[in-house]
């Protein structure tokens, strides 16, 4: 793969389902997950003739909050438009969306990759409605399609990035940051597996250092930040091979096949998109008063970047540590609750980034799903500090707490994990280790340091990690010097 010769130019379109109680233009419940098909439907979201949509105020506010968090400008007035296209998931034959006067425009967000931070421009963040769900069936050689309108009319925030992204890892970081922002604001679950956050990616490549853009390919069906990165890596490689093989890249839409790890050309429609946008006559315009916008600004939650800066300032953490602690929802809050009880921010941060992140990775889960509380972590750190348990044992206890939710103190007591600092018992065990390893003992007497470590290791092994290594060391030196 000779990607160094070529520079990718990447932009993303992200659709975010807003976590309102009701739908965008009718009062049907928007909480359709797990509901029976077509049970969250009324004449409005079914697109019956003559019905009138009414704007959900909270959806507008969620859009404005998101735009503000993305450093966007908010115009004085905005409106909705009809985007016309025929497809069975679009019951009215048009989608109510926004065309030339979106709620928010011209923003940016920062990502911390490739020697960053880098800014990625946000062209616009506008509000529209989701479509119905189609299920394609095939039985006895014949196909048909089933349609469930529960999702039809759920508010959807569309965020369009500028083509500012230059690597697959940066694209992944962009998606993760966007997700974290909407989660922090509380406007969406951001759950990609459930389709609450969906990405389409545009990618072209050009010779590094050249100005004109290459031919653009759109990739759809990306349902995780990781698949965004993988699909882009694949596509850069594919386009590079095509160009170097003297072929042309065709402008087309490709789908990502997660199982095979490839992008696949999707049958391109002969017809270029011709949406014939026009203003939605059933919805009056929305004027965005400064008072309204200021009020929203004030109720905005602390955003990841602001929180990161505060952690550096308030807790003396490094930029790296602060980024780590503010890069997933709930981690920062966990850290702050722990530090409120235990005044060693760096130690706390290390445990979160080391053990907690390891457990989350291994179990492929989120901090909210673990029974582990900040109080548990603090209790564990205190047990280390007062010499009750060793670092190694503490890591075992941590895993147990993360599974069982039991208190570290209880686990240590029940599993007999407390460190053996009792000098008499340890002295007996050290003596045994010396007797069992005469050569190592002789080496220590001859001044060979590694042998001392070996003997300490033998005692640690015999006690399954429960011996206090410092005490073992002392006893070893004493016994061997006086022997």
């Amino acid at each position, binding site marked *: 793969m000779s990607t160094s010769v070529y520079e990718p130019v990447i932009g993303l379109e992200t659709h975010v389902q807003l976590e*309102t*109680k*009701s739908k965008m233009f009718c*009062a*049907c*419940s*928007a*909480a359709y997950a797990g509901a*029976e*098909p*077509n*049970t*969250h*439907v*009324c*004449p409005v979201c*079914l697109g019956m003739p003559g019905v009138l949509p*009414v*704007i*959900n*105020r*909270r*959806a*507008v506010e969620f859009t404005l909050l998101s735009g503000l968090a993305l450093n966007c400008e908010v115009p004085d007035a905005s*409106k909705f438009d009809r985007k*016309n296209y*025929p*497809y*069975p998931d679009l019951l009215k034959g048009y989608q109510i969306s926004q065309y030339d006067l979106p709620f928010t425009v011209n923003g940016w967000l920062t990502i911390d990759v490739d020697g960053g931070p880098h800014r990625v421009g946000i062209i616009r963040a506008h509000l529209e409605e989701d479509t119905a769900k*189609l*299920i*394609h069936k095939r039985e006895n050689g*014949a*196909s*048909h*399609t*089933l*349609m*469930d*309108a529960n999702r039809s009319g759920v508010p959807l925030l569309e965020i369009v990035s500028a083509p500012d992204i230059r690597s697959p890892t940066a694209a992944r970081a962009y998606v993760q940051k966007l997700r974290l922002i909407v989660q922090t604001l509380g406007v969406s679950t951001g759950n990609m597996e459930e389709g609450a956050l969906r990405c389409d990616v545009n990618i072209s490549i050009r010779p590094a250092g050249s100005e004109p853009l290459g031919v653009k390919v759109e990739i759809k069906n990306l349902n995780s930040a990781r698949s965004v990165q993988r699909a882009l890596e694949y596509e850069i490689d594919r386009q590079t091979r095509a160009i170097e093989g003297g072929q042309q890249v065709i402008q087309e839409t490709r789908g990502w096949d997660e199982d095979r790890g490839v992008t696949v050309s*999707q*049958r391109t429609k002969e*017809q270029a998109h*011709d949406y*014939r946008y026009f*203003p939605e*006559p059933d*919805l*009056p*315009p*929305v*004027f965005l008063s400064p008072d309204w916008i200021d009020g929203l600004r004030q109720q905005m939650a602390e955003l990841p970047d602001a929180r990161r800066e505060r952690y550096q300032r308030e807790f003396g953490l490094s930029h790296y540590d602060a980024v780590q602690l503010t890069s997933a929802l709930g981690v920062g809050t966990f850290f702050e609750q722990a530090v409120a009880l235990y005044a060693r921010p760096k130690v706390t941060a290390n445990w979160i980034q080391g053990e907690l992140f390891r457990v989350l990775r291994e179990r492929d889960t989120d901090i909210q799903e673990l029974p582990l509380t900040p109080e548990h972590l603090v209790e564990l750190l205190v047990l280390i500090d007062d010499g009750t348990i060793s670092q190694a044992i503490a890591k075992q206890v941590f895993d147990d707490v993360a599974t069982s939710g039991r208190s570290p103190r209880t686990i240590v007591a029940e599993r007999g994990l407390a460190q053996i600092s009792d000098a008499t018992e340890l002295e007996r065990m050290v003596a045994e280790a010396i007797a069992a390893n005469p050569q190592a003992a002789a080496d220590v007497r001859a001044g060979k340091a590694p042998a001392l470590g070996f003997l300490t290791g033998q005692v640690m092994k015999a006690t399954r990690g429960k011996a206090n290594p410092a005490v073992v060391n002392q006893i070893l030196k004493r016994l061997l010097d006086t022997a």
Partner: protein
Amino acid sequence: MAISREEVEHVAFLARLGLTEEETTRLQEQLSTILDYMRTINEVDTSEIPPTAQVIPLRNVMRPDEPRPSLPVEQILANAPDREDNHFRVPPVLD
């Protein structure tokens, strides 16, 4: 201002209308007349007037985010040409 036959066919396709030869000819004439009328309106100097999408003096008509019961699924499916369990069943959609 004449609209071409191809343009009429294109617009008809976008609207998924199947037109006969005669209908295409008739609509070509009628659409041309409508566009002529628009051209007359276009002659008015509107450089000082902001684009207007709505003439009704309403703005910021919004509702609180409060869910209300939907229709029973039997009513939702009452007009469905075909159904399978509680789904609408439609001809295959080729992706």
